[in-house]
């Protein structure tokens, strides 16, 4: 797996600048109509202008209607703010806008039905304020979920980090075995030892942003290297894999194997001091398998061992490890969790079908039907896991 840090949080400054321009016109329009009943716009939806500010949070929502509608959220304060539309008692969130710049207006589209609602304004530099409760008497609302806070994510992040630490011990142990086989010139033994060591590392894939640059050294490909597979900076598992499956001698492989053990040992030793950002946990649950789809199911990371499906299976294990720590948070928030679990089990069965003892069917030997079934089940999983990431994005509630 290439651990390149697929996703970064939204570039905030960029977003604010871009939206300021877009929303100038909307802002003028919104001010002119503030406080009036919901009105139909060119999109055919009711639009209501609502204030975002510590003193007047939620003001302007005087004529509630049910159905799909747009709130023009106008930040009248002098600092950026976030806003949530929530059910005041359960605090389940129906919609949110992050980083509304001072003086700007941004649309929030939601479906509202029978129930009680309030806007919560969360200024960047002050406590959250909840606006007046508004009641709607007909219809059904769109999906909502209680926000997950950073506080909620700390215990699962710590538990996960501890699990990763134990896994790193195993990786070091298995990789030392791989190096020993190479050192004694036993290339068949080295080929047999390579896979367990690599899979143990792939199981930890979830921690990739926390591993930082170490991962490029441990598990990078030759992408971006001027000399390709012969580049001196091509290192790690895939460098050793390339040599073991392309007829290189034990002598040639000694240095790459020793370098791999050293990098892993360093990572293990520094891991105890590292602190994983709890906000990363939900993203990891989703993105481990995004990497799998991108790099394993395409064969991009195959340097001769033909074990992409084994890696995919290890990545699935890694995903489930993250999910198991998030489960208490997801159980009440993710209505489709049972389906996700079922699809995850199907993915496991599908991938296990390509295991024959210690050997795995290489990707290129799959029939079209087999390949489509693997693609279908993992594509389906990443679609479902995307919701885990959005639900577990930590939100400020106070």
């Amino acid at each position, binding site marked *: 797996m290439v651990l390149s840090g697929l996703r970064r949080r939204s570039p905030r400054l960029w977003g604010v600048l871009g939206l300021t321009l877009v929303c100038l016109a909307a802002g003028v329009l919104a001010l002119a109509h503030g406080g009036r009943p919901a009105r*139909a716009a060119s*999109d*055919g*939806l009711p639009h209501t202008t609502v204030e975002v500010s510590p003193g007047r949070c939620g003001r302007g929502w005087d004529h509630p209607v049910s159905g*799909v509608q747009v709130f023009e959220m106008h930040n009248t304060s002098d600092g950026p703010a976030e806003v949530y539309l929530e059910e005041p008692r359960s605090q389940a*969130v*129906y*919609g*949110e806008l992050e980083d509304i710049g001072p003086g700007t207006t941004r649309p929030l*589209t*939601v*479906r509202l*039905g029978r129930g009680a609602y309030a806007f919560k304004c969360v200024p960047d530099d002050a406590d959250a304020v909840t606006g007046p409760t508004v009641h709607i008497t007909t*219809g*059904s609302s*769109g*999906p*909502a*979920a209680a*926000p997950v806070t950073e506080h909620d994510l700390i215990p699962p992040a710590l538990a996960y980090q501890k699990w990763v630490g134990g896994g790193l011990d195993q990786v070091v142990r298995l990789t030392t075995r791989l190096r020993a086989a190479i050192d004694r010139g036993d290339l068949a033994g080295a080929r047999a030892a390579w896979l367990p060591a690599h899979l143990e590392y792939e199981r930890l894939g979830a921690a990739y942003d926390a591993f930082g640059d170490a991962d490029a050294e441990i598990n990078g490909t030759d992408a971006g290297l001027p000399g390709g597979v012969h580049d001196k900076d091509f290192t790690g598992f895939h460098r050793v894999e390339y040599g073991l499956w392309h007829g290189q001698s034990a002598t040639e492989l000694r240095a790459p194997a020793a370098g791999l053990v050293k990098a892993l040992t360093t990572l293990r030793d520094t891991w105890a001091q590292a602190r994983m950002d709890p906000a990363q946990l939900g993203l990891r649950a989703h993105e481990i398998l995004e990497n799998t789809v991108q790099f394993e199911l395409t064969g991009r990371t195959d340097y001769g061992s033909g074990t992409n499906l084994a890696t995919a299976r290890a990545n699935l294990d890694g995903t489930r490890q993250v999910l198991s720590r998030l489960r208490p948070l997801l159980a009440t*928030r*993710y*209505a*489709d969790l049972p*389906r996700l679990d079922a*699809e995850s089990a199907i993915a496991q069965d599908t991938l296990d079908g390509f295991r024959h003892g210690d050997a795995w069917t290489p990707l290129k030997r799959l029939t*079209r*039907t087999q390949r*489509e*079934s693997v*693609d*279908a*089940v993992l*594509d*389906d999983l990443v*679609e*479902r896991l*995307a*919701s885990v990431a*959005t*639900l577990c*994005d930590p*939100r400020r509630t106070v």
Partner: protein
Amino acid sequence: MSTAERKGAVARRGFLRGAALAGAGLAAGGAAAPITATAAATPTVAPFHGPHQQSVLAAPRRVSAFTAFDVTAENRAELTDLLRTLTDRARFLATGGTPEPVGITGPPADSGILGDELPSRALAITVGVGAALFDDRFGLGKLRPRRLTPMPSFPDDDLQMDWCHGDLSLQLHADDTDTVLHALRDIARHTRGGMQVRWRLDGFSSPPRPSGTPRNLLGFKDGTANPDATDAREMNGLVWVGRGMGEPDWAVGGSYQVVRLIRMLVEFWDRVSLSEQERMFGRARESGAPLDGDAEHDTPDYADDPKGDVIPLDAHIRLANPRTTATAGQRILRRAYNYDRGMDSNGNLDMGLLFCCYQQDLARQFETVQKRLAGEPLTDYIKPFGGGYFFALPGVRDASDWYGRALLT
């Protein structure tokens, strides 16, 4: 559609991401509550609901994507889920409106490439099924449309299996590329667990140059002699499967769809003299008129030219449609597009014809014509490499109907 219905739909269709993600969306017309107040000023495609897929008859729009899928759903219940999800998406994409908001429970329901609101009736969608769907996976063998087989390899073909056949066919066409790609992306997103793309070829229809029927990439007007798609009687006689034709009941209202991916060897073609080109087609390149006429829509008089002195006996138009009473029932409804897919391995342009046609009976119509065309002079300049036979399903009649309902229930 009421929210209660939508919630029911979510539970029932849970196996596909689609329903869980976005429900059916908010359709702007049809059976759902109208959200869009005004219809677009540009000519719209036919309404989505009806006894036939009206997209079959629709004149080709400027941009098309033709995609064949293999179904990965494992049983009949999952296939049903797939077709219902496909229907929900198609209905919403064709009808337009605002995608259902999902709040913090997922990424946005829509890719946003068409803005916040989808246009109404800007997209035509045609869904078909291939013979492969009637194998032993879903227990549908006895319900196979009687004339539906895998597309055979014809004598002048050079088929590549990666570009042939499929369980399902999906044809999208619209006047803008973004509309087509938006729809393809939406449908793929909602059906990933149930089907995978087997092959896809994008096509385009050229504007009239300077008037009349659009030209193909050999420079000739293509489709001049089509039957009149606005003539219901003619369509009932040539395109739609009706009762009493020996077809299963569920298939009534559908149509056989033939897709042929035909590379044109355009460099070679451009080295051929104009008179030879015109004799191969039987038409004048500039006007599109038959070689014995003055204007594009003049009817060739083969009886007056029995030896082929004016229009050679092996000219394409003469073989394809001999204009006799006996061959009138063999006519097909051509719905062809041009395609362009870059270069081949030795630096020649890879472009040609995404041929598509509809008919009531594959053997009586397409295959009879195809056999007559075997060995025609034009075959030196074209190379059919893919495609398939499909059966365009009967139409989705209303908000509660779905593609293949009569087949699966």
